[in-house]
């Protein structure tokens, strides 16, 4: 509860933020991932650069696809009509992050930069083909969400780089869903499954699936996708996809003493079925 001493500066622009951030600095947005670890003295950055009031990082815009500013809060995303219509799964995921206070302060940029494996939004971003827009001293770049999440608390971000926004394709002609088995204490996902289905009549033309919580990072699940694609989402296809998803995540499993890897892996199968039913229903 008593963080180490640190310097605090507020940036007025992205360029200024990139100038201010030093080798030992951290960007501060909503602070709901960073400040708790600082209070526990698990992290002790010497400098915080507050990006919370930079206008260009705010807001959600829709033109063809979705562009969500890095400092858009979970609550804003959950309540956004554009997000609900273009990617309902993301609205659902953001609406289930933490509690209301966390959602009012916590930001999508901060969330994905922290890359907690049990967090909800990354799983949807990976399933729905989002890209992460990044700015650094050397300019801007964009990375697919799948490539952005590298490992446990590890992303493709380099030191000094800042997430500016997240882009998502328009999924309004898809049926997507995110369902999770929340940890009874933390409400983080023991397993979270995002699916995005393109239906052609009663047949699934294309399926995108990602799993988080059970894994060290959000994992795209090609085997489950293949099992669902071309099917009518009947029990046989669901059972096959549930088996396949366990194999898809086998190399990335995470667990703890209360909810071990083996259990989470099995639950990924159960929750895949539930996610597909939620999306198709």
């Amino acid at each position, binding site marked *: 509860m*008593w963080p180490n001493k640190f310097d605090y500066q507020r940036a007025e622009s992205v360029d200024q933020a990139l100038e201010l951030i030093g080798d030992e600095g951290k960007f501060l947005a909503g602070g709901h991932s960073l400040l708790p670890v600082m209070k526990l003295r698990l992290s002790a950055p010497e400098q915080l650069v507050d990006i919370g009031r930079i206008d260009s990082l705010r807001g959600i815009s829709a033109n063809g696809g979705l562009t969500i500013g890095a400092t858009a809060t979970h609550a804003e995303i959950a309540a956004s009509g554009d997000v609900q219509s273009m990617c309902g799964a993301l609205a659902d995921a953001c609406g289930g992050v933490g509690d209301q206070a966390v959602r009012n302060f916590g930001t999508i940029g901060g969330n994905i930069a922290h890359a907690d494996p049990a967090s909800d939004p990354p799983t949807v971003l990976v399933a729905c083909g989002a890209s992460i827009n990044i700015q650094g001293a050397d300019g801007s770049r964009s990375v697919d969400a799948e490539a952005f999440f590298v490992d446990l608390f590890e992303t493709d971000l380099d030191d000094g780089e800042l997430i500016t926004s997240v882009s998502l394709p328009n999924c309004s002609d898809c049926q997507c869903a995110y369902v999770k088995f929340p940890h*009874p204490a*933390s409400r983080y996902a023991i397993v979270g499954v995002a699916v995005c289905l393109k239906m052609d009549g009663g047949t699934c033309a294309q399926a995108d699936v990602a799993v988080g919580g059970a894994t060290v990072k959000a994992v795209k699940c090609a085997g489950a996708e293949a099992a669902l694609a071309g099917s009518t989402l009947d029990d046989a296809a669901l059972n096959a996809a549930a088996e396949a998803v366990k194999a898809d995540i086998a190399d990335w499993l995470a667990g703890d003493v*209360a909810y071990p890897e083996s259990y989470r892996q099995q639950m990924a199968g159960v929750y895949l079925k539930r996610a597909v039913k939620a999306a198709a229903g």
Partner: protein
Amino acid sequence: MSTRIFGSGIKRREDPRLITGEARYTDDIKLPGVLHMAVVRSPYAHANIVSIDSSAAAAMDGVVAAYTSEDIGDGLAGLPTAWLIPDSDLKTPEHPALAKGKVRYVGDGVAIVLAEDRYTAQDAADAVEVEYEELPVVVDPEAAAQDGAPQLFDDVENNIAFTWVMGDKTASDGVFNTADVVVRDKIVQQRLLPTAMEPRSAMAQYNPATQELTLWCTSQNPHIHRFIISAVTGLNENKVRVIAPEVGGGFGSKIPCYPDEALVSWAAIKLGQPVKWTETRSENYQITIHGRDHIQYVEMAANRDGKLLGVRATVYAGMGGYLSTAAPGIPTILHGLLYVGPYTMDSVYCESIGVMTNATPTDAYRGAGRPEATFLLERMVDMVAKRIDMDPAELRRKNLIPAFEDGYEVATTLIYDSGDYPAAFEKAIGIAGYDDFRREQAEARAEGRYLGIGITAYTEMCGLGPSQVAGAVGFQGGLWESATVRVTPTGKVQALIGASPHGQGSETTLAQIIGDELGFPVDDIEVIHGDTTETPMGWGTYGSRTTPVTGAALAEASRKLKEKARVLAAHLMEAAVEDIEYDDGKFLVKGSPDNFQSIQDVALMAHLAWNMPEGMDPGFEESQFYDPPNFVYPFGTHIAIVEVDANTGDIELKRYIAVDDCGPQINPEIVAGQIHGGVVQGIAQALCEGVIYDDSGQLLTGTMMDYTMPRADMFPNFELGETVTPSPHHPIGVKGVGETGTIASTPTVYNAVLDALSPFGVEGIDMPMTPAKVWQAIQSA
């Protein structure tokens, strides 16, 4: 016709200040020049301290001092263990305020730093360099008691602090050797974190001119804290003032006197400046006492026709690294004596082994020994039912003690005060629709849905208790309470009590008792508690004792005042005392209802003393010491209905029925609140709460991210019922209700889950029954 305030569910008078954040807790109290104490705590569960270097810390800007055990020397005596149980070979190893040469659990204090602000104190604590030599660790109490286990203390052989025996082993063996049926199980009562909403805090101020120490602290029993702080500091007890301001819950965890409270006192005396310490939640989980931690080997004997014959158990009770204040009494006196429960069972035997382990000390946690007893009984009863193929409700019905009104002696030597267990049982069975449920269960199973029902019939002893019994069982204190009812000249009441409520709503309940006795409006009655200088002596709020014991003292003090008022009123109205009738705060002359003196009139005239009857002293104030002649024994039956999702192991609690009998209810809303809270805590033990240590003694459930506290959305609306059986020995017939929920609910839900899983043949799951464990049990069955 007057409206009785007794029995009225008025709103809790303490709630406005609590829910608007206006209440003043220890940490809210600001003193000029206060120093902040941080404690350097051991990161190892068992280690020798090779060296401590606090020079860098002491040299930091804003740091006033850093001290180790060596600096304290004999300035502080070790913290006492205050429950010296008989019939055991109890050893009480030294518990220094800061570790001397060796640490025994993660969080054991090794040094303190005092600084001008809290941040600097924490920086300085981090800067103290301690070199440790790690030692082998043992956390499991059964393992710790075996030959060859790591030894915590040289003078506690095999870490066994005591072996307490209850009952006649030979007689018990005779019953078990000849019984038709014996069932047995190993039951693990996992460690639990009390998690009071307010963490512990302590602030001390010493006045060298008067040599008086004032200690504000989170205490359930400030008079006991004064007693112990006086003993450890060497100050005379009349020079120590302990104030428990608003206290945000305790559940037992604020009964003990901890090193931290002794350390702020010592440092305040040493430095002549006020010193404050407030724990973080992480510290709370690491160093504030834990509850339960039993490994029980339990057996029950029965006849084939369902007659229960006896129960016996060997209990390994984890004490942690030191013996906390009341620790030895919890798995012994407060546990074994409950082995008969509500049943006509004649044979009991208990061997309870208190074992030192490299873990946080344990002590009383809501229910304290009684939940652990009720659980093992109810678990065994269900196992007997299964073995003899009898419905578990029918088996309980067959063995319940029949109704009694004034004393029923059971094999544990307790004399239950009053009870009608069958009435409460049948009421709960009726609310649940037990027979219908069995049909519904069968239909659901046919559809692949797994419903289960669990029943607990219980009685417990609370309202602790007769002081003579306290002495006989080694409790190093009395268990009476005292109270003063003081009426001001304008007819407003100050009720001063020695007990120290901390969230129970006692300011409301106790005011209702006084209002009922004397006719003062409840809003005119203030209940004052928590300050050893302002209040009369009392032994504290725990063991569901404040309403039964303090309430009795207040009722008796009020009755004395009422008699004084009657005599004075008669005198003022020039009537004979026997012609005075009392009705709702008025003393009337029989036959002339317009001729009366109100209680307020009488109070004023008693203060003015212009016209007193001969021999009557002025003033309007009475005190009463009350030592209960027996415990009180609330009882009831709880029923839970659950559904298990076999795909995930997730458990949905569909219904929860609680029929409790705590005698006449003074405030039914507060009774319901106590039951709700207790039930939630007890169900949490069954389903989600549980401390996990790794093999090196590190606490893996050290935050609320990992330790699962119950949440409102886990629970259905509770269905409460009641029966009313007054205690025959109590002035107003009431029994305690603070712990019944935790005592009854854990086995209720546990048995319901196992009932749901019976198609899979699952015989047992260690608590907490998390989805992962339930799912694994289904897979393995």
